């Protein structure tokens, strides 16, 4: 999978690059809108990560130009502004997803994967860990074939854990991704939320899937090592 990361902040670009490469993506980076236009039209990329504020040509105009030329490459927009108007504009112009800074690289990767899955017409929106299967399309959760009803928040929490199965997610990441860190709840709030999720996902079953990573946060995996 080749991804072009267009981001003028070099450190942010480097972080994204490292995160993506760690997960097996081939990453090219450029820091300037005009250069990005040349490379995006010359080379075949599977996806673009595109910042909005760029020197040369800004992200929105780059997006507009690519779509005007019927270039279907999946694009995830990044912006420093959480402005809804800008998000709507970006999505209307044909961006596939949108992420506001500050974002977590794990989240970006999850979004990127989702976008790529959609491009491939991959209908299987199903993820599974052990005997737990989660269908992100129908929002159906099952264990051992038994359907489990989750509230919206519980589902979002499960989704957050499932983004990186096998590696721990910190409490801060959970509160940011699930609640968009809207309140200063402190971290034991996350513990309460996880406890509730466990009551539905783990407690009725003999194998536990959600584990505590001491000091760090939580991890979802099939077996405790």
């Amino acid at each position, binding site marked *: 999978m080749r991804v072009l990361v267009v981001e003028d*902040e070099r450190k942010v670009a480097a972080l994204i690059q490292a995160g993506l490469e760690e997960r097996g993506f081939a990453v090219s980076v450029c820091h300037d809108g005009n250069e990005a236009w040349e490379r995006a039209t010359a080379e075949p990329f599977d996806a673009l990560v595109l910042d909005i504020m760029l020197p040369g040509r800004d992200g929105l105009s780059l997006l507009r130009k690519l779509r005007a030329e019927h270039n279907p490459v999946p694009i995830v927009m990044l912006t420093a*502004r959480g402005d809804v108007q800008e998000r709507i504009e970006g999505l209307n112009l044909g961006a596939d997803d949108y992420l506001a800074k500050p974002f*977590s*690289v794990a989240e970006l990767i999850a979004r990127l994967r989702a976008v790529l899955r959609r491009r491939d017409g991959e209908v299987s929106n199903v993820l599974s860990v052990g005997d737990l299967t989660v269908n992100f399309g129908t929002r159906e959760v099952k264990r051992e074939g038994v359907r489990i009803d989750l509230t919206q928040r519980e589902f979002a929490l499960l989704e957050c854990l499932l983004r990186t199965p096998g590696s721990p997610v*910190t409490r801060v990441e959970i509160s940011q991704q699930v609640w968009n860190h*809207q309140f200063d709840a402190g971290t034991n709030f996350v513990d309460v*939320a996880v406890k509730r999720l466990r009551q539905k996902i783990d407690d009725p079953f003999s194998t536990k899937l959600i584990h505590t990573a001491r000091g760090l946060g939580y991890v979802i995996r099939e077996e405790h090592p």
Partner: protein
Amino acid sequence: MMNRWPVRTKIAAACGLITSILLLVLGVGTLTNIHQSQIEAADVELATEARLIARLLGGGGLPSDGAEAPPVDFEPWVAFAVVDAERRIRRSSDALPFSAIERALEEGGPLNIEGPGSWRVQAFPEPPQIIVVGYSLEESHRHFLGLVFAYLIGGPLAAAMVAFAGWWIAGSSLGPVRRLTETARAIGPTNLHHRVPVPETGDEVQDLASVLNSMLTRLDRSFQQAERFAADASHELRTPLTIMRGEIEALLRRGDLSPPVEARLVSLQEETQRLERVAENLLLLARLDSTASALPHAENVVLGNLAAEVCEDGEMLASARGVTIESKIPEGLWITGDPELLRRLLLNLLDNATKYNQPGGKVRCHFYERDETIEISVANTGPEIPAELRPRLFDRFFRADDSHLHTGHGLGLAICQEIARAHRGEITLQEDSPEGWNTFRVTLPKRLSGK
């Protein structure tokens, strides 16, 4: 009380009052003077007449009884009597009353005698006889009364006219000031770019208008700067925060760190999260400040669903803090507004209500549907908010306890207030709430007017 009169009324009243006083002084003075001159003229006349009569009667005493008096042709307002040494009236014109003659003989005069008729009389001794001359004051009195009457009617009339003139002139010269006031009143934080009209009159009003405009320009500039500063600052903070967050996450993900290092990184991550929240809230406030009049993303929101979702979060917050929450949301609530902002408003209130509570405390979140509005009451059993802190509760960066025991940053209620304002509603801390609970009450109109 007069201090509260409009300038126009004050000027009119002053004009009327001053004119009245002037006319009164002038009138009294003039009338006294006229009266005095009339008397003096009468006295001169009396003396003249007396001399004339004396001459007519001849120098050598009275003619004998029955002798024809020389013809005396007097003006009708003059009367006389000739009295001898024994005080017998030898001759008299009929008009002069007997009582007047008697008093003149006793007192000499000149003096005023009333009734019948009004007379000025004086006795002139012309030995061996005394000539008493009377001058009828009827005519002068009529003139005098006429004058008094004219003053009584004309004076108030003149005062009223001057007062009206003052009122009119004040009104017409204050007109531009009033228009200035109206325009200035309509200028608020949302339309600081508006300016008041400058009348080309070259007077103080024009001066005032241009001074007002330059003040508005300065105000506008500093408002814009403050807004832009908050927005720029939080934008600029986002990039380094992204980097910090990413670096910390990358380190944590390596999985080969010793537990103490990991713990420190987690703590660092928590602080980064706090910074992010502050930056985000500042940006939100800046955005609410700049769009205080309009909600760009307003739509019809099914408030019931939104509230149920928020209450789910609220319950989790509550149980994390050992607090129980009870909510009551009627069916079919809807409202026009920005769903994200409304969610934030409710969440902040529930967050506060559970945070500033005591272990085992309670939170009650009730929604009420009124005719035109929706009322949300969020009450908690936390310690009572001291009266002196209440007015500052909605200030930015205000903390109720001034300790850093709680993790809040003091923007929550300020944001609630701005969100309520943006929806043309309000938020208040209810005074004398039942059972001594701290009760925040939000009132939001169902429809945004003008939408």
